[in-house]
């Protein structure tokens, strides 16, 4: 179970590798109609590093994740994945980049007509066509064991709990062994025990796989547990970025208020 103590260990164990960012967002702007959501935001994440994005609802955190995976296009600015600018790329051109990314949606977005096992197998079926049925089964089983869901292989998404759906969504996101993991509010809607279980799972996966991860969350304890750095967003931009101690030492009124209320 994640505790305040192993947050310090997590920071000591930080093993962000290399200098080149895997994900680099530069001066990105995004509006929906008259509503400006992102206002020149810039940030970067390196391999083995986890960045947690915090902020009030409506500050564009989830929108930024969608821009990074290419589900939406920025109005201006650049988003580079391993040095390649994805802004403006067509659907089929994004395919190669997306195979290196895993995305956990806020409500898991499991395919409701498929079982948990079929959900996890879905990316493998489409992108690893050379895999035999038994190889794919073994891989699915391995992924479900990794997230603690081996007993749910043949169950439908509607028959499992919210926490189990998140685990299944995470297993599916990891199916192609991505270099980059994007998590949209992984503990949203879960009870405290399930939330800490998800945090532990994410920590374990980070230690083993050394991915670059970006986590959007409202849960400050979770953010401190699983991330190397935190970025606090307000009015479409990063107000402060750094370790939790850096946020605590900030004199910005919004930051103090946010930490007080969290």
């Amino acid at each position: 179970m994640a505790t305040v103590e192993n947050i310090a260990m997590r920071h000591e164990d930080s093993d962000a590798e290399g200098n080149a960012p895997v994900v680099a967002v530069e001066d990105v702007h995004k509006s929906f109609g008259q509503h400006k959501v992102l206002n020149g935001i810039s940030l970067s994440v390196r391999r083995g590093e986890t960045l947690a994005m915090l902020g009030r609802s409506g500050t564009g955190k989830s929108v930024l994740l969608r821009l990074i995976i290419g589900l939406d296009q920025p109005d201006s600015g650049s988003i580079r994945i391993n040095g390649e600018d994805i802004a403006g790329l067509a659907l089929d051109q994004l395919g190669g980049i997306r195979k290196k990314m895993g995305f956990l949606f806020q409500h898991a977005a499991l395919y409701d007509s498929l079982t948990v096992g079929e959900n996890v197998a879905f990316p493998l079926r489409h992108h690893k066509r050379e895999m035999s049925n038994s190889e794919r089964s073994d891989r699915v089983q391995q992924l479900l064991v990794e997230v603690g869901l081996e007993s749910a292989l043949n169950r439908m998404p509607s028959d499992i709990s919210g926490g189990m759906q998140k685990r299944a969504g995470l297993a599916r996101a990891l199916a192609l062994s991505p270099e980059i993991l994007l998590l949209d509010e992984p503990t949203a809607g879960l009870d405290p025990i399930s939330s800490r279980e998800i945090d532990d799972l994410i920590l374990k996966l980070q230690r083993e796989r050394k991915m670059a991860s970006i986590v959007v969350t409202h849960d400050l304890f979770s953010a401190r547990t699983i991330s190397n750095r935190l970025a606090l967003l307000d009015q479409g931009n990063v107000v402060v970025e750094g370790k939790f101690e850096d946020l605590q030492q900030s004199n910005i009124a919004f930051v103090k208020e946010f930490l007080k209320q969290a």
Partner: protein
Amino acid sequence: MPPLALVNSLLAYIDQFFGWFGSLGIFAWKVARAAVTPPYEWREFVRQLDEVGSKSFPLVALAGASVGIVISLEARYSLTRFGAKSMFPATLVYSVIEVMGPIITGLVVSGRVGAGIGAELASMKVTEQIDAIEASAINPYRLLAATRILACVLMLPLLTLVADACGLLTGWFAQSLVEPLSFHQFIESGFRGATFNAFLPPTFKTAVYGLIIGLIACFQGMRTRGGAEGVGRAATNSVVLASLFLILADVVLVKFILVVFP
């Protein structure tokens, strides 16, 4: 309403009208492009052939059978009145195969398949399942739309043949109850002098109906917003718009067939 407000309101409707067709055109282009570029989604295509074809069979057969009986009853009365009872077999055959069979099949399938596709894809859209497909580097236009549209295009002519066969069978049977007529005599008399131009074009024009049903249902489903209300609206609009365009297309296609296949 003041005149200026009325004009603005009218212009807004016209804007929406052309905007809808523009969006439909862009959607159709994306689907066409996805359909002809690999990797092809054969597994999903075969599944859709079953969904559209096999599962519509009972309803189409029943609709065709009912049409056959109705035409038999109405035609017998009219032909007897004008002293042309001997024309009954040809009247039934030409009415069913050239006119009623295709349009009834189209409308029945528009209701069943159009609503089903519209609701299914709309539900996937509002629960982010389509986003999850795209985030997994799978083209949703290829996997979801192209497979369904092609299945509709292929299955409509076959379903029309089913409706025609059932209509002719029940029409003959209804006539035989009043005035015995062997099935052999009925077929020989009904198809006497028949040519390719008389029967195949009306049957294969239903491929265009299938294109209309599949395209509109997929378009309405994949652009849904607004939760459960949006899903309901997508299903309803799929049926209404597909049926409307189908009927309008029939007018054009009948004229086209008469000109090209005199």
